[in-house]
């Protein structure tokens, strides 16, 4: 048997590509129109107009590297159809356009594959288990968001994993530069920057004497600055700094997205509702905010009846506060083997407490966590739960009937894969360690998910059953957002658990 899991990972990627091909005719969201427009925009117009063109409502709001990436993907497009890259884009795209764009997503996933192949060796130069790699490549959340909903997260996650690979191997400068270019592709990853900064500062610059440390600091600083200059310098030259900033950081958008991401703020809003209700019952005069959160569209944040208003600064401070233990650990004992865990935790904090978080942002930590999910049984347990929760919280993204079975089957297949893989992996390891041979794997099975976890996961099935079957029967067309709120709330519990689990693990074991 081959001693390396790299060929197997390439095989897993090829299999995933077949699934991606089959997903081409499925539903696409407005994000498809967004990227279609960006492709045409970056191809047809000079860079000077990228951030000013308003011929479509889907204005470019990603940093410049992503625009360059779009431009790169648009290069072969005229061979397929010149209309593909003409501004304004056609209203309803023909199948060829869909095919082309879907294939660019599948193609850009090669970045992910490359990083995963590199990550086949972990920080201690040992082989990562094949399953850990295939969990990344077969992630149902990634398939759903990239290949049905339509985004390029595979490429972005590929960059993140690449920088994590460099850090794990001790090539800090490369890791920092790659992370900087990731930031210049999608600035949402800024949330991981404090951990990167702390880790790189301590691991790369400190402990080697003042002169050498300073030299390294300058080196790293100039590397990162060069990346940022490459991204932003043209737009500074055009005098579009303000314009760019407004596009990248639209704080006017409100605390929560139309569909609430399952994070801390769900509980905050719910608490506010409950308190307002109770206080009114007790006779207090509580003003009901005009626009309700349940209305689906949230434009600004002054919507709380009782609890204090939440501002972007509050969320920012909360994120930093939640991250502090991890930053402290990264400062006091910077070790490459923990970097994936720390970065994932930072992204988790951003997801739990951040401003205007999309449910899709849970990808940013579930994907890296997949890589370390086989390190020990506790990680496997945590990942098993987290991944199901995060994938389920994405279900409302694909709301059409045609994709219903697809999303359910993707999740179920993945859950079965994790179940089989984790069980057999830890059973095999306990065999090898000469423990009592565990023929049925029963202790591992019991251990993979306890009764609380199991009942929590069954609760997901119950929620799904309710929203699909009984909600309509009981309420008819009233309260159309109740199932969504239930999904957010219920998944929020799992997400909070995951956050706390990661926090405890980092405090205790790193």
């Amino acid at each position, binding site marked *: 048997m081959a001693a390396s899991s790299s060929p*197997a990972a390439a095989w897993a990627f090829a299999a995933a590509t077949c699934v991606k091909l*089959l997903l081409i005719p499925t539903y696409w969201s407005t994000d498809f129109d967004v990227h279609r427009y960006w492709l045409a925009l970056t191809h047809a117009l000079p860079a000077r107009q990228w951030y000013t063109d308003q011929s479509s409502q889907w204005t470019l709001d990603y940093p410049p590297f992503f625009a360059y990436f779009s431009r790169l993907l648009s290069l072969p497009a005229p061979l397929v159809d010149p209309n593909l890259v003409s501004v304004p884009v056609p209203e309803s795209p023909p199948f060829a356009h869909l095919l082309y764009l879907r294939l660019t997503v599948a193609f850009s996933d090669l970045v992910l594959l490359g990083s995963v192949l590199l990550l086949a060796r972990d920080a201690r130069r040992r082989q990562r288990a094949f399953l850990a790699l295939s969990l990344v490549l077969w992630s149902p959340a990634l398939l759903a968001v990239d290949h049905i909903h339509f985004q390029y997260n595979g490429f972005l996650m590929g960059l993140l994993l690449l920088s994590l690979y460099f850090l794990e191997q001790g090539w800090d400068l490369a890791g920092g530069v790659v992370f900087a270019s990731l930031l210049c592709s999608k600035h949402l990853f800024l949330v991981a920057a404090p951990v990167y900064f702390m880790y790189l500062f301590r691991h790369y610059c400190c402990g080697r004497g003042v002169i050498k440390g300073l030299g390294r600091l300058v080196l790293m600083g100039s590397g990162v600055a060069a990346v940022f200059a490459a991204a932003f310098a043209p737009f500074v030259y055009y005098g579009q700094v303000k314009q760019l900033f407004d596009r990248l950081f639209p704080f006017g958008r409100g605390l929560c997205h139309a569909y609430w991401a399952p994070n801390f703020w769900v509980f905050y809003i719910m608490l506010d509702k409950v308190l307002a209700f109770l206080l009114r019952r007790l006779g207090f005069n509580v003003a009901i905010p005009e626009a309700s959160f349940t209305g689906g569209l949230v434009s600004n944040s002054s919507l709380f009846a009782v609890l204090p208003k939440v501002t972007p600064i509050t969320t920012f401070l909360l994120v930093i506060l939640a991250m502090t233990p991890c930053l402290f650990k990264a400062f006091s004992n910077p070790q490459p083997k923990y970097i994936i865990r720390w970065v994932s935790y930072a992204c988790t904090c951003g997801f739990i407490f951040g401003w205007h978080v999309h449910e899709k942002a849970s990808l940013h930590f579930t994907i890296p966590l997949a890589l370390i999910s086989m390190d020990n049984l*506790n990680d496997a347990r945590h990942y098993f739960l987290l991944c199901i929760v995060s994938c389920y919280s994405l279900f409302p993204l694909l709301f059409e009937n*045609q994709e219903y079975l697809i999303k359910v089957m993707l999740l179920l297949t993945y859950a079965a894969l994790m179940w089989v893989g984790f069980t057999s992996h830890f059973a095999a390891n306990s065999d090898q360690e000469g423990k009592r041979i565990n023929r049925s794997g029963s202790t591992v*099975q019991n251990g993979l998910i306890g009764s609380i976890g199991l009942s929590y996961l069954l609760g997901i099935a119950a929620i799904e059953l309710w929203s699909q079957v009984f909600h309509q029967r009981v309420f008819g067309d009233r309260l159309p957002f109740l199932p969504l709120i239930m999904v957010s709330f219920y998944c929020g519990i799992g997400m909070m658990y995951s956050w706390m689990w990661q926090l405890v693990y980092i405090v205790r074991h790193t």
Partner: protein
Amino acid sequence: MAKPKKSRTSAPDPPKAAARLPWQPPAPPVPTALLISLAALLVRVLVSVGPYSGQGAAPKFGDYEAQRHWMELTLHLPPSDWYRNTSDNDLAYWGLDYPPLSAYQSLLHGRIINASLPEAVALRSSRGYESPESKLLMRWTVLSSDLLVFFPAALWFVWAYMRGGIGITVEERREGWMWLLAMVLISPCLVLIDHGHFQYNCISLGLALGAIAGVLSRNELAAAALFTLAINHKQMSLYFAPAFFSHLLGKCLKRKYPIVEVMKLAFVVLGTFAIVWWPFLHSYEAALQVVSRLAPFERGIYEDYVANFWCSTSVIVKWKRLFAIKPLKIMSLSATILAFLPSFVQQVKSPSNLGFLYSLMNSSFSFYLFSYQVHEKSILLPLLPASLLALKEHQMYGWFVYFALFSMYPLICRDQLLLQYIAVLALFFLIYYSPGGRHGKRLNISCRAKVVLSLPFLCSLLLHVTYLQLEPPKRYPYLFDALIMFVSFSQFVILTLYTNYKQWMLDTHSRSVGMKKDL
């Protein structure tokens, strides 16, 4: 709950543990089977997103409309009118031409669809009804039939096969079952025809597969009943009949009271037939009416370009012009019988489980190649036993699947399922060559043989592209269809000669090896 101790992070033998696939032992068998089934179902769900045959192609549409029309008929008409030309049932427009079990299945599915989308199956007004919802509902009826019939049958078969340990080593017995299950479940032709093109082959093939599993696990009576049901769902299942008949006969003859055993089987078969045909048994005419619908001899000895003997040789001998229907019938019948006779005799003489599987393939191939009115989709029937033999005949199966798919390529292109074709074909071969599999026992074939073997493969690759890209010459508008047919036909002939040879060699082989294993 036993909380296992925190396992050490350092695995003692990392390279081996890393390269181990998650589904290899000691993976628990039941969840692994579940995982494979879920993956197979996922592929079907994904294929079902694609277009179906005759989508938007008024006025005749395609097989999708045929199935929908049968639901409409069976739902609104009494059984006596199902197979008769009446004012509500125009037999020229997709008249029901499958046996009663198919009609019952249509009725059941028609009821389900009627409950949520009545206009899709309304009498007469629903002709050519197409909407995203109705497509989804129709697709789900196929998916659920597949899940309820074919999947359990496949699981039962793999269980019976492994318990019987048929022609495999101990190692294969321990690890091979997952690969075999995957091969049976992710059969690309079946997936594309049922969930892309739109048919319910999964039911008849699933019933036949259940019958095969019954034979392997020595439940002959259950097997007889299941196979009768398979015949009653699609008459094409008769392709397997010689194999079942000869094997069961041969087994009965070896027993103490052969007559009693045969009587028991006959009773089960006739009883099952009687139950299925009950509504049509009240008069001779009614039954005859159904039978005449099932055997459409007037449609000619072949249609389109099917890679069988009659169609392929028609380039040289114009069968349709030279002979009337009657002599053609006799010729095709005798050719078919001659073709399956060797395998038939072998099974009567020395019935064995492995020989039975070969015999299934040989008899279904003989029908595909020589019988009257064969469709290109009938290649699914020889493919089923070939997939069951996948562990034993690894190379042959891969080769066969490729050319079976290739023989349906024009159909796939007509249905605009090219994307699905590519994806499913690639996925199949990825699983076929899954890493860590020890199934690729290299055949020791000489260089010259390799060249000879790769020639048809290269031809097929070339034809794949030319069929799409090049306009055929005006004089021969079906030139490429015919070429595809020739290449496939040549491969099928070689395959069936090979499997016939293998079946006959089983006797000599088992004699020389000794009977130790069969104890």
